Each structure stands twice: as structure tokens, then as C-alpha cells.
């Protein structure tokens, strides 16, 4: 397996020396174990029998008709066990943790989806599980906190910094530094020090591989455009990676523009004012001030509410292979509502960002053009947020 520390000038291992030997061991185990048939067979077994893969590639006929342009297909990651793509990666990392003889796993979570996925696989493999979560997010995502507890995990409140995902990630890394001997850190997005961004991509690329195959079966050709939302960027890198070599396939990553890029209240790391910096052990595009202090990200979608972006995305951005755009809160909610009514599918607000961009572009495309949108998760978790946005009491 090709494994490198950097993606162009991005990525790397910007961590305290104390973690370096831990990362070296992880790198070696990942490289060796994850290329074996034993791992691949185990991974595929659980993907099929436990997660319910392959997830379907669904032709959204009514949505397509409504927009009157390109044919729109949805990659249904929302149909996975636990309701999102996060389980693909959490399960694979748990297999690696088990192989490495670790008895405890820790994870960070923002909205709680990765926390739930990690708590789920910890229960599946009989491992002790702690999930670090910002106090602000605990308040906003009570339902997922309770889900994690039901699954046997301990949710550790993080009040440092701004009490959100970035702080929960800091705290998880700090804990890992102290307890690496028996503890495996399951990172949920394509972020962190090497080898995490590569590992997460390898464990998520099943999304793009299936899509490619399913599209060839359905249409006999590859799509013209592929859309996925980008917070840290795990569903998007998993979707894009198998298409990177296909020059005719345009790849579009959609960030969260929150209240609008001009307001400064957004989570778009590729927005004009962002800069290259270091956070969570990686060098990448970050929302930061002139002193390099990390700014708080904002989005209605807790899963996109991250001030940075995975380093491979930074690289794909610079070489121009992926185009990155952004969608506001308002636009994402409109897309959310449209999919509910036209297709009977309630998407996660995260995924609604990718969908909104596709819905903007589709009408001006040819009827023979094909679009794929990665529907990274289901929206049941978001009904309270949507109700609040719409001013409804439930």
C-alpha cells in the first residue's frame, strides 16, 4: 500500500514528541495489517452483514423531473446501520485496534454521529469506550448522548476552549498521549496526524468504489459530476478518491457557508479569508485570525461545524482536481425539505449541503448528463434543528 506522510505541502505529523513513537507503531500496523486478506475479509464481512452494504445507488426520478436537467443519483449512505457513513471507518479502526491488542477506544464527536458509530463498534467488539464531546454539543445533541450511553459508552464533557468539536478533538488527543499504551484513538474524519487522514480515506473509499461499479451497471458509464459535503471531509474523500483518476468526472466538495461567507459565521475552510495553519496534528487550510489562532466555525449542521479540512482535500483543492463550493444554512434546509417531499427521503443536514449544490447545478445541465450526490447520512437526528429553524415547536 502506498502510504505517505504528506499530501503536497499538507498533512504531516505536527504533534508532541511523546506521540511520535505511538504514531510510528500505528503507521506500521496499519500498513501491514490492513493490506492482508485477513483484514479485508473481516472488514467486508462486517460491511455486508452488520452495516448492510453495499448501500444502494438510487435514481431520484421525481427530483430529476422537478429540476428538469441532469439525471440525479443518490448514494444512500443513510441506509447504513447507525444511519451514516461514519460506521465504515469506525468499524475498520476498531478491527485494527483489536488486532493491536488495545482494550479501550476513545473518540471525539461533534454532532454525535461518530460517537454513536464508535460506541456501536465498541459494543460489537466488547471494548471499553469513552467519547469526548464539547459541553456545547452535549447540550445541543442530547439524544445522541443518550444513545451512546445506551450503547455502553461514557461521554466525557469537554469544557476547555469553546466547548465544541475542535476542543473535544484536542482533549481526545491529550488523553491519547497519556494512555496510548492500552488505548486506541478512533478519529472520525479524514483529519489528524498521519496516518489518520490516509487511514480514514482507505476505510471510506468503499463509498466511491461501490458508486463507480453501480454507476457502470446502471448507466454503462461514469457520472459527469459527483457531489459530497465537506466538514473534515471523510464521506467526500471516500466518495472522490476512486474517481480522482477519471478525468471526465468532475468532483465537487461542498462546505458549509453558515449564515453566508460575508458574515464570517461559516465553516468553509476554503473561503477566501482562510489560511494554512496547523490544528490537530495536521497542516491544512484553517479558519484563523492573523495570529494563527483558530476561529470558531459555524454551521446549522453540527457535522460540518469544523474550522479545518482534511489535508488531502487541501491538496486536491490546490491542484484543481476537486472544486470546492459552499452552501448556506438556508439553502441546505430548502434542499432538505425538497428531498423529503419529492423522494420520501430525509437527508442529514450535512448531506443536504451537497444536495443543495447539485440542485443548483442540475437544471442548467443536459438531460443526458449524470450527477451523483453522496447522501452521507439520514436526517432523523436533525428534526429538532429543522423544527427550530422553521420556528415550530415539537
Amino acid at each position: 500500500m502506498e502510504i505517505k506522510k504528506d499530501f503536497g505541502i499538507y498533512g504531516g505529523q505536527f504533534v508532541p514528541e511523546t506521540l511520535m513513537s505511538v504514531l510510528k507503531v500505528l503507521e506500521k500496523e496499519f500498513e501491514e495489517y490492513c493490506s492482508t486478506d485477513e483484514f479485508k475479509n473481516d472488514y467486508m464481512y462486517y460491511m455486508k452483514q452488520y452495516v448492510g452494504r453495499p448501500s444502494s445507488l438510487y435514481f431520484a426520478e421525481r427530483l430529476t423531473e422537478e429540476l428538469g436537467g441532469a439525471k440525479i443519483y443518490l448514494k444512500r449512505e443513510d441506509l447504513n446501520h447507525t444511519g451514516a457513513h461514519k460506521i465504515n471507518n469506525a468499524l475498520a479502526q476498531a478491527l485494527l485496534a483489536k488486532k493491536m491488542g488495545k482494550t479501550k477506544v476513545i473518540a471525539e464527536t461533534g454532532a454525535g454521529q461518530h460517537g454513536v458509530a464508535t460506541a456501536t463498534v465498541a459494543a460489537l467488539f466488547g471494548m471499553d469506550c469513552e467519547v469526548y464531546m464539547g459541553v456545547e454539543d452535549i447540550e445541543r445533541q442530547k439524544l445522541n448522548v443518550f444513545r451512546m450511553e445506551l450503547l455502553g459508552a461514557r461521554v466525557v464533557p469537554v469544557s476547555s476552549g469553546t466547548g465544541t468539536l475542535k476542543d473535544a478533538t484536542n482533549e481526545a488527543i491529550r488523553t491519547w498521549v497519556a494512555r496510548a499504551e492500552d488505548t486506541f484513538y478512533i478519529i472520525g474524519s479524514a483529519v489528524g496526524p498521519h496516518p489518520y487522514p490516509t487511514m480514514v480515506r482507505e476505510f471510506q473509499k468503499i463509498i466511491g468504489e461501490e458508486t463507480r461499479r453501480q454507476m457502470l451497471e446502471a448507466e454503462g458509464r461514469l457520472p459527469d459530476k459527483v457531489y459530497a459535503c465537506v466538514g473534515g471531509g471523510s464521506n467526500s474523500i471516500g466518495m472522490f478518491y476512486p474517481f480522482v483518476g477519471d478525468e471526465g468526472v468532475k468532483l465537487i466538495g461542498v462546505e458549509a457557508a453558515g449564515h453566508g461567507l460575508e458574515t464570517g459565521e461559516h465553516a468553509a475552510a476554503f473561503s477566501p479569508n482562510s489560511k494554512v495553519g496547523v490544528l490537530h496534528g495536521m497542516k491544512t487550510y484553517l479558519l484563523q485570525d492573523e495570529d494563527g489562532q483558530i476561529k470558531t466555525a459555524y454551521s446549522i449542521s453540527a457535522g460540518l461545524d469544523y474550522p479545518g479540512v482534511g489535508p488531502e482535500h487541501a491538496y486536491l483543492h490546490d491542484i484543481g482536481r476537486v472544486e470546492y463550493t459552499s452552501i448556506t444554512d438556508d439553502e441546505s434546509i430548502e434542499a432538505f425539505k425538497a428531498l423529503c417531499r419529492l423522494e420520501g427521503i430525509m437527508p442529514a443536514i450535512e448531506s443536504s449541503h451537497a444536495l443543495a449544490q447539485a440542485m443548483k447545478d442540475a437544471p442548467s445541465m443536459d438531460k443526458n448528463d449524470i450527477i451523483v450526490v453522496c447522501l452521507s447520512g439520514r436526517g432523523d437526528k436533525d428534526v429538532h434543528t429543522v423544527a427550530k429553524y422553521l420556528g415550530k415547536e415539537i
Partner: protein
Amino acid sequence: MNRIDKRFNEIKAEGRKALIPYICSGDPSVENTERLVYALEEAGADIIELGIPFSDPLADGPVIQAAGLRAFKGGYRIDDTFRIIENVRKRSHIPLCIMVYYSSILGYGRERFLENCIRADIDGLIIPDLPYEEYDEFKPLVDKTSIYMIPLVGLTSGDRIPTLVKDAKGFVYCVSSMGVTGERKEFDSRVEGFVKEVKKNTDTPACIGFGISCKADVDKFDEFADGCIIGSAIIRKIAETDCDIEKVKAFVSGLR
């Protein structure tokens, strides 16, 4: 001669060990930081480490995190640290190191940051999240100046130690624990062996930091190391006494 080398020569001649306090710039205020630097020097500090607060300090425990938040609350900017040092240099020649996370250097601009370090006349840089594998990013620039980049070595560095310390200048920062900064009741039993391993591989002084909070800790580590770095315990004292300079001074004097 770099002031750090000069100071270690003096310390050696006097047959004692180095006391290296750490404080956070801007905690509780920029003016007080300057006053604290003088107080630390009067209390017997050999080298002073001045931290640049960062929004996401990966290597720091709750006490130093809180100090950073207090600094930000007071409107702290990186330029304040340079201003403090420029003022200090008008009165004092104590060796000064800046402790800074790499993101701050990148955000501020690598060249600009280093130019300001030179202008402020500092002696060393400690960058906790720039491990050996990432030295290429910045160390070649630092090495062109007379400022030393202080290497950090950890309990788990093992066979990396010879590589990490082979070009060490100033002193080697030996991290006593697996976790973050902050006072500890007990230390890992491997500390002595690991510091000895460092000393076997370099003539550059080896100082221990992370978790040291009292005279007893200092005495214990001074038996086999060349000095101790104390941060959280001093910062806690600053916070507890509402930055009573005399009380902080007395506390630091008591560590000698």
C-alpha cells in the same frame, strides 16, 4: 555567545542546577507579564520561558489552558510578547526562550516571526508540536540565526534519542510524563533512565519539564538532570494570589 550557553557555563562553575520557570504571556495582563519576568529573575531563575498562548494548545493541561484564555480575554496578540521582551531587554540579560505552537508561527508568518525574535533578542525557541520529522518546515531558518531551537525528547522516544539530540543546542527539554503539562503527584519510573540516555548522547544540558511543582520534585530531578522547568505550579500561584508579585517571587525562590 548565546546567553543560554553562557548561563549553563556559570551554573556548572557554581556547581548547581538550572531553574527554568515558564509563564504565559498576557496572563493576567501584558504589563504584569513584564513585571513577572523581573520577579522571576530576582527569585533566581536562570532562564525564563515565555509562552505564546494558542487557541488549541495540544500539549498543555488545564492550568496553562486557563492562563491562555485569561490572556485572550485581555485582548492578547502575539506582538505583545515581542513588546514584553523588547522592554525586558532594556533592563535584563536573562536568557529568554519563547514557547510557541507552530500554528502561531505559520499564521503570523515564518519569516516575520523569526525577524521579530531576532529584533526582540531572544535566545531560544521551544515548539512543542514541531517534532523532528517536521523540522524541515522551520529549523533551517532558525539555524541561520543565533537563536537555538530547543529539542524536546519524550519518555517513549527510545531509539530516536540519538537522532533527536545529536545537534542539540542550548538545552534538551526532557518531557517527564506521557500526558500534558500540569502538576503531578507521581512520576513515571522511567524518567531517570531516559534522562541518562539523553545525557549519554549529548553534552548539551538536559532539563526536565512537565509536572514539576515543588522543591522536593526539583531536588529529586536535579540529582540526575541539569535543571528543571516549572510552569503550571507558578501559573497556579499567579492565579491564586491575583498576581501578587511578591508572593510569586517567594514561591519561585522556594524552589531553589
